[in-house]
């Protein structure tokens, strides 16, 4: 076994240099509106204050650390648009719109990660899957909500330790699902049922 190499002592000048390099927090961005071309929304201008920072990315999109919330006012389904890749956007809903009873238990480490001192500053989104040919079967991933510190705009998708929460919970109650199926222009309900 070799003796471990002792760490070299940095001269004081070097230490100061290193410290200077780290005074800017990595999540702090310059205040320039960002333009990105997106598949879903076309050209998209993002102001600094609209950016959601996911320091760990999102499972499946690990390198994507900056996202922006997008969508229409009258649509309960919003989108988080990746600012790393214009082709990537995830549909989300606020859980209370569809699941008023939904509550989650956060660990102290989650709060620390989100740099959150008071839960009042937290908001929640859940990712939904919308089958393109059967939007009435849209389902939400209640097992892994996205929790946002709205003050700092730092967010993380948190995987909960609760086996009762489904990754594919239907978002529409049966009567709304029926209604959407009836009024869908593209596919008739019969055809849709037959294809399942």
């Amino acid at each position, binding site marked *: 076994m070799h003796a471990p190499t002792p760490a070299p002592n940095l001269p004081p000048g070097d230490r100061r240099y290193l410290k200077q390099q780290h005074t800017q927090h990595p999540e702090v961005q310059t205040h320039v509106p960002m333009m990105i071309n997106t598949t879903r929304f076309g050209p998209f201008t993002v102001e600094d204050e609209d950016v959601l920072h996911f320091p760990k990315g999102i499972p*499946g999109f690990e390198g994507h650390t900056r996202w922006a919330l997008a969508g229409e006012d009258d649509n309960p389904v919003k989108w988080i648009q990746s600012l790393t890749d214009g082709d990537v956007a995830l549909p989300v809903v606020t859980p209370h719109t569809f699941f008023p009873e939904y509550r989650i238990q956060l660990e102290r480490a989650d709060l620390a990660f989100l740099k959150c001192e008071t839960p009042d500053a937290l908001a929640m989104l859940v990712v939904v899957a919308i089958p393109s040919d059967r939007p009435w079967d849209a389902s939400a991933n209640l097992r892994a909500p996205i929790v946002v510190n709205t003050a700092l705009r730092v967010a993380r998708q948190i995987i909960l330790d609760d086996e009762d929460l489904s990754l594919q919970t239907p978002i529409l109650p049966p009567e709304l699902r029926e*209604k959407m199926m009836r009024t869908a222009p593209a596919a008739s309900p019969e055809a849709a049922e037959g294809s399942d």
Partner: protein
Amino acid sequence: MLALSRKKGESVFIGDDIEVVVVDVKGDQVRLGINAPRDLVILRSELVEAIRNANLAAAKAGAFPADILKKGGTAR
């Protein structure tokens, strides 16, 4: 990847404060015990993979009719 042989009741340490114990071995199933700080997230890899796949599938989403939740509204 580091591979170590361990018997039932034996353990390994990962760093100073994570201990993984082989609690039981039955056929092709190994029961692991993990002593770790409470704030450390420990998840079955299938669950992480399932969440990843759910996100990748969600990114391929279709459109959602806007006015479905409005009273008297009709989906376009």
